[in-house]
């Protein structure tokens, strides 16, 4: 399964390449979990980038980075369908990337998808979409395939589209060479788009107001929040928590971290501290070992660490007495925390650590819901190994509502942070005794 939500691994670094450093970092959102009209998008004004956070998405992130490097935050106002300018802008960026030896090479799936879309456009007789898709493909690995396809089944516009592909490519490359930079100037792109719009109008593909009747979404991916380019009708990109919430359907609750007073030894009697004999040290403790192995010094032994997180929500039906029994089975160095929630908030309470534990009255649950599974697991992911999570696997967010996306995020986190989930207390106690 694809590993999601790993911006630090698969995520791009637009901040490193923008012309003027912005005040805030870009927000990188996993496009795999967001409903987008294209595989990747970028909002230069609001500093948000949507890209699939997976290994095969490199061409997508590369293309979006090209926009960050070379596209203006606000597009030039034009008196024709903006999708024309967007297609030319895509071509300008792709050719710029090619010039830097960073070609946009689509994987087999994306390649086949684009070829299929072009065939569908041709079949539907959507000349405008043919032009846009072909121009936007310039500089990518699919360009040649589209050209061949247009030659093979030209239809009424095929030859013209190919002509325009050649014309746009040579104009952009010549301008790039003249500018002695990695990319053709933006102004040249606007000029080219204007010429293309003129031609499209002459072909009847744009109406008198310069707008196309085609409903095909453009392949372009630059979003300008206010009055600028919008990639497809009805798509209103949002950012921040809003998008995350939408993606997750349910937002995780707010977690409060507390430590109960750990006044009770985890085990009655001895066992709170562990020492070992050593040949080096400053406290002579085992003098009788001198003739045997000379390990006469006392040194602190390595504690067995680890962390145990217990879901104490209602569905687990755990009573303080059950937790009491679990604590008795817990190894001395292990940190134990319980969590549950209610409404929008939840609490994670540390109830045992370093050989000491909380009194039974501190083992009562905070609420009857889960609510904060994800933030609690994020806490667990930062604790020492091994990490055990006692839970029935039910994951909820605000209002104790469940969500598949939230569940997937928890599963991905468990895989990444080596968190082992056990469903039952007995199973956990057995595991702990075996350590």
């Amino acid at each position, binding site marked *: 399964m694809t590993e999601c939500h790993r911006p630090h691994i698969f995520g791009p*670094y*637009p*901040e490193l390449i923008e012309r003027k450093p912005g005040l805030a970092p870009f927000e990188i959102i996993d496009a795999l979990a967001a409903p987008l009209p294209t595989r990747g998008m970028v909002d230069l004004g609001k500093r948000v980038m949507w890209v699939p956070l997976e290994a095969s998405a490199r061409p997508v992130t590369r293309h979006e980075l090209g926009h960050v490097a070379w596209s203006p935050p606000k597009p030039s106002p034009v008196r024709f369908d903006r999708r024309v300018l967007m297609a030319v802008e895509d071509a300008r960026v792709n050719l710029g990337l090619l010039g830097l030896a960073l070609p946009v090479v689509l994987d087999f799936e994306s390649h086949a998808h684009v070829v299929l879309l072009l065939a569908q456009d041709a079949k539907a007789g959507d000349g405008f979409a043919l032009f846009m898709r072909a121009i936007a493909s310039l500089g990518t690995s699919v360009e040649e395939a589209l050209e061949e396809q247009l030659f093979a089944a030209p239809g009424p516009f095929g030859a013209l589209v190919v002509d325009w592909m050649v014309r746009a490519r040579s104009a952009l490359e010549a301008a790039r060479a003249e500018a002695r930079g990695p990319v053709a100037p933006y102004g040249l792109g606007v000029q080219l788009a204007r010429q293309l719009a003129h031609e499209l109008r002459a072909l009847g593909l744009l109406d008198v107001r310069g707008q196309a009747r085609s409903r095909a979404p453009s392949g372009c991916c630059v979003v300008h929040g206010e009055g600028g380019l919008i990639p497809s009708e009805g798509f209103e990109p949002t950012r921040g928590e809003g998008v995350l919430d939408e993606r997750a359907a349910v937002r995780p609750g707010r977690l409060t971290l507390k430590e109960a007073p750990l006044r009770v030894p985890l085990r009655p009697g001895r066992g709170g501290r562990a020492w070992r004999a050593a040949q080096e040290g400053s406290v002579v403790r085992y003098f009788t070992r001198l003739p045997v192995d000379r390990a006469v010094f006392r040194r602190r032994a390595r504690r067995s660490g680890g962390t145990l997180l217990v879901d104490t929500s209602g569905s687990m039906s755990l009573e303080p007495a059950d937790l009491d029994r679990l604590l008795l089975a817990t190894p001395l160095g292990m940190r134990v925390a319980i969590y549950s929630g209610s409404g929008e908030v939840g609490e994670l309470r540390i109830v045992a650590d370093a050989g000491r534990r909380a009194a039974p009255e501190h083992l009562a649950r905070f609420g009857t819901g889960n609510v904060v599974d994800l933030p609690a697991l994020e806490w667990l992911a930062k604790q020492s190994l091994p990490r055990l999570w006692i839970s029935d696997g039910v994951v909820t967010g605000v209002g104790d509502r469940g969500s598949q996306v939230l569940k997937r995020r928890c599963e991905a986190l468990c895989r990444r942070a080596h968190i082992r989930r056990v469903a039952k207390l007995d199973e956990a106690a057995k595991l702990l005794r075996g350590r």
Partner: protein
Amino acid sequence: MSDLRTKRNKKTETESRTATITWELIERVLGSPTLGRIYLWGKAGIGKTYCAYHKGRIGRGVYAISLTQEMPASELRGHYLPKGDHFEFHDGPVLRAMREGARLVINEILHASDDVLSFLYPILEFEETARITLPTGETVTPAPGFHTVLTDNAAPDDLPAPLRDRFDAVLEINEPHPEALALLPEALREVARRGFALDDDRRVSIRGWLGVARLEAELGLADACTVVFGAERGSQIYDAIVLARGC
């Protein structure tokens, strides 16, 4: 008269701004003979340890230790070692630094065990109070010049209040050390500076950039990025570097 007012206004304006801690200030602090206990903190790979080892009063030597939760105080103080038919006490780094009037650098202080923290109380006292009595019975007081520099990635808030109270200076650093940046090729410096300013989970440390700079000539940029940052992250960083250079 109006000139005077303008000057006064300018001065007030300057004084009312929040002060920023620069590396230049930190180096002055590290060179100051009046500051004996300095706490430096900031993001990983920023150059705290480098500065603690190489800047300021290091003429009498530098003793360095990095703490872990498992480290006992005896490793800092010293311990007996068998020698022939008897045991000899060997000074630990803290004791050596005290005897020689050297600098003691304690890294990752927030990882210290209770044992080590208790041991550090008398060490971090003012010079006239600081002393330690060894298991041999000898009492050691710090030689003139002895001072401590403590480093960690986080603020000292998690340390016990009495220990925090002993620090003469607590300095947070947010910028990578200019000498570390100077080791990078010109084309990588700005990229490195920006990469360092990112959020914790996306930050690219200066060590990473230095690694790329060192390996680039040998392996090429793409492979250098892969080796230093791993396959996936390295690909993204490679693309960003090439684009940044191209821009």
